[in-house]
């Protein structure tokens, strides 16, 4: 009896404990969303083309990548602000000038945003512009060659984040400063940091673009020292206006994560650039001393030139009225996006729990009625409610950036809640939401920022990948997700790693540029001063200590391929002309001990590799691009003699010693 009673007590207690030990109510982490027939929707069969080109910023790699959609395949990396040893960009004698600045040669930058050229607000497939965030510059990439063709530096800018954004007909590419700095003379710039409010200025630079794409710093507006974050041009009815998100209206200069996050509302700055043009016509601008580089690549000589410019036309909107107006926008807005009609301006306060949408019509009326609630640094602040179309309530957390599908819907990335939220522009109702993996920054819809979006796909560019791919040590890849947005519900189709750290990207129909591609350069149009347009022109010339090798390359030999009479103390310039006149036959050139890189020469082009020999001996050089079945035979030798030697300068191809 006693034994069984003890047993009873024991089982009762044990049962209670065991039941309790299973915490059955622990919530499950939401799993993967179903992908259904996604594979077939992103499958581009061998030999087939993708539907869209996706031009993706590389962030801290200073490059752009060219990706196909919907496959996510990477076609090319275009070096823009960073040297690229693979092609010799920034290393070859011809391309060095592209990376020249008022600070000298700068081999790296941080490329955040892409702006594709537009005509009547629609993509026209001519150029892609990109910004250098660190040493402020804007670059233009030619979409017929996918090469960086022009770079212009921006004076009086502390950091070029809010850039590049383009007007409806590519009249201007606009670039504004993220970091305000004191500008002007040395004395005006050498000021205590704590005089930020009085002495620091933001600048908004308008770069005009001519029909050939040529960029010119047309004028610069001197603005209050806010941090400009992102911007969009007006279009359609709002053409002539530009909208900028502004944070740090607190004018903080230290611990910004706290001190620039205090106000409930920062601003969107509305800028009437037609008005600015009027003032310029009236001669109201001031030519101000500045120093900035303007670099252009010539596609006949394949040579870049860098010009240092000395002045910029500045406008002071605190004196020249009616150019800028501020609209209150909750908290620290990041995205500032204009819908395809040009009527709605979406402000994405990254610390706000709602998305305000402003109406251009209401804004114009408020400005006309002088319906202002105060001023900011001497500029009118439009009454918030008067400019407001409405608010998207509880969209998610950390709204960053909005794109449009052309069917009346907007899509906003939510960094903190890691999702994309679809909402109706007219009713402001949230329609759908879908997770991203993880912490999405910018999103891209082909044509999304234009008057004519192709609302078929949406790509989310993420900041964190964590557990999504096979891990590669502490540094993991960045990644994108491709969603099908053609239906009512967004569907995840593809998850793919990206190059560098993409911020913004744009995409356009392949048909706009596919058939305009340059396949090779015509030799007869080659104006390079050291070009050898045939093997008969190949030669080696001594000019004092400089040795100029006029070299040709064709499958599968260099001419000349034997060179003697070069001495220690000489500088050797290999000017290599690729004689091929066919598509997809580049040749490379590399020589042992070169302290730069290889150079890659497109058919019909000439590129120069400078080499300073330091050791006596015979040094091989070879073709680095697998050009033909006899690529491994494509090589040569250069003999280096002591400084005081008497070896005669000579060169040859195919000569053998007399037997």
């Amino acid at each position, binding site marked *: 009896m*006693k034994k069984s*009673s*003890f047993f*009873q*007590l024991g089982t*009762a*207690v044990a049962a*209670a*404990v065991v039941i*309790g*030990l299973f*915490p059955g*109510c*622990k*919530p499950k*982490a939401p799993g993967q969303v179903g992908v259904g027939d996604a594979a077939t929707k992103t499958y581009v069969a061998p030999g087939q083309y993708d539907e869209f080109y996706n031009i993706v910023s590389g962030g801290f790699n200073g490059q752009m990548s060219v990706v196909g959609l919907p496959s996510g395949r990477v076609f090319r990396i275009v070096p823009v602000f960073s040297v690229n040893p693979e092609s010799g960009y920034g290393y070859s004698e011809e391309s060095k000038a592209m990376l020249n600045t008022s600070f000298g040669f700068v081999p790296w930058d941080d490329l955040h945003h892409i702006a594709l050229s537009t005509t009547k607000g629609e993509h026209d497939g001519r150029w892609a512009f990109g910004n250098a965030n660190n040493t402020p510059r804007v670059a233009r990439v030619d979409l017929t060659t996918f090469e960086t063709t022009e770079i212009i530096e921006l004076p009086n800018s502390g950091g070029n984040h809010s850039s590049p954004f383009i007007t409806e007909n590519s009249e201007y590419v606009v670039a504004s400063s993220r970091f305000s700095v004191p500008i002007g003379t040395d004395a005006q710039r050498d000021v205590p940091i704590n005089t930020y409010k009085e002495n620091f200025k933001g600048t908004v630079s308008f770069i005009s673009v001519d029909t050939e794409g040529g960029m010119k710093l047309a004028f610069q507006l001197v603005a209050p020292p806010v941090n400009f974050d992102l911007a969009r041009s007006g279009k359609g009815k709002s053409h002539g206006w530009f909208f900028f998100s502004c944070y740090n209206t607190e004018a903080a200069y230290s611990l910004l*994560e*706290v*001190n620039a*996050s*205090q106000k409930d509302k920062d601003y969107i700055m509305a800028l009437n650039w037609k008005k600015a043009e009027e003032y310029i016509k009236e001669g109201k601008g001031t030519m101000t001393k500045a120093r900035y580089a303007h670099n252009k690549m010539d596609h006949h000589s394949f040579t870049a030139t860098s010009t240092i410019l000395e002045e910029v036309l500045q406008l002071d909107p605190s004196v020249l009225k009616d150019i800028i107006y501020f609209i209150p926008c909750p908290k620290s807005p990041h995205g500032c996006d204009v819908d395809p009609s040009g009527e709605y301006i979406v402000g994405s306060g990254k*610390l706000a*729990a709602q998305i305000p949408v402003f109406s251009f019509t209401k804004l114009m009326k408020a400005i006309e009625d002088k319906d202002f609630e105060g001023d900011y640094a001497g500029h009118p602040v439009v009454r918030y409610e008067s400019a407001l179309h409405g608010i998207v309530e509880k969209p998610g*957390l950390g709204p960053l950036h909005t794109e449009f599908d052309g069917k009346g819907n907007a899509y906003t990335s939510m960094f*903190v*809640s*890691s*999702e994309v939220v679809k909402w109706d522009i007219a009713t402001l109702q949230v329609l759908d939401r879908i*997770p*991203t*993996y*993880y*912490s999405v920054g910018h999103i891209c819809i082909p044509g999304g920022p234009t008057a004519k979006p192709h609302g078929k796909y949406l790509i989310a560019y993420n900041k*964190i990948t*964590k*557990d999504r791919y096979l891990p590669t040590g502490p540094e993991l890849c960045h990644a994108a997700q491709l969603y099908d947005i053609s239906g009512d519900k967004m569907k995840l189709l593809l998850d793919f790693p990206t190059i560098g750290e993409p911020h913004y990207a744009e995409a356009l129909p392949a048909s706009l540029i596919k058939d305009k591609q340059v396949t090779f350069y015509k030799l007869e149009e080659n104006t390079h001063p050291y070009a050898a347009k045939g093997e008969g022109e190949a030669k080696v010339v001594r000019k004092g200590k400089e040795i100029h090798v006029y070299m040709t390359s064709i499958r599968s030999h260099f001419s000349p391929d034997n060179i003697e009479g070069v001495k220690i103390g000489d500088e050797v310039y290999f000017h290599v002309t690729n004689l091929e006149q066919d598509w997809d036959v580049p040749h490379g050139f590399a020589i042992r001990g070169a302290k730069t890189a290889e150079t890659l020469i497109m058919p019909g082009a000439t590129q120069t590799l400078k080499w300073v020999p330091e050791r006596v001996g015979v040094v091989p050089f070879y073709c680095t691009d697998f050009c033909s079945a006899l690529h491994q035979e494509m090589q040569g030798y250069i003999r280096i003699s002591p400084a005081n030697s008497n070896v005669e300068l000579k060169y040859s191809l195919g000569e053998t010693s007399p037997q």
Partner: protein
Amino acid sequence: MKKLLPTSRIAIAIASLLLAITFFTPVWYIWMWAPQYPEGLSLYIWLNNITGDVDIINGLNHYIGMKHIKVEMFPEFEVMPAIVGGIMAFGLLTALVGRRWLLWAFLLTFIAIGIAGMVDFWMWGYDYGHNLDPTAAIKVPGMAYQPPLIGSKELLNFIAYSAPDIGGWMFISTGLLTVSALVFDIVRNKR
């Protein structure tokens, strides 16, 4: 004075000794999940320490102005081991003396301390979730971040879940075993 049955006395001794485990295992844990943290983040509360992803959680919570979690913010940690040691000693004394009134006294003390502990934990959670730095970057109107006392709760982009860990289950077991011993003793003596 009623004497306790030997079975009850053994059960009480076991119940007291179970608490020894709480010195070597976490008592409570809080688990948090967010989209960016698919693996989840954990906090383990011990008798005299707090461990787990404390630094990561502190890093995240500073955006919304929550205090940094550190051992010094819990004066409880200095007295908890002594209190639990005291409970164990009381329990063993009860088993040794074997009087019904002492068992009552032990049980009521134990329950009182348990309630006090939970109230204390709730009060810390309230302060942690409500007493926010007014200069925090992210302020969501009407939002407080008090972690759940037990069970799960959505806090911005996080789902937080709070539950007893092994040590906590030991406390629960001690309580259940002590109650069972008392009930058993009363029922048996009535027959």
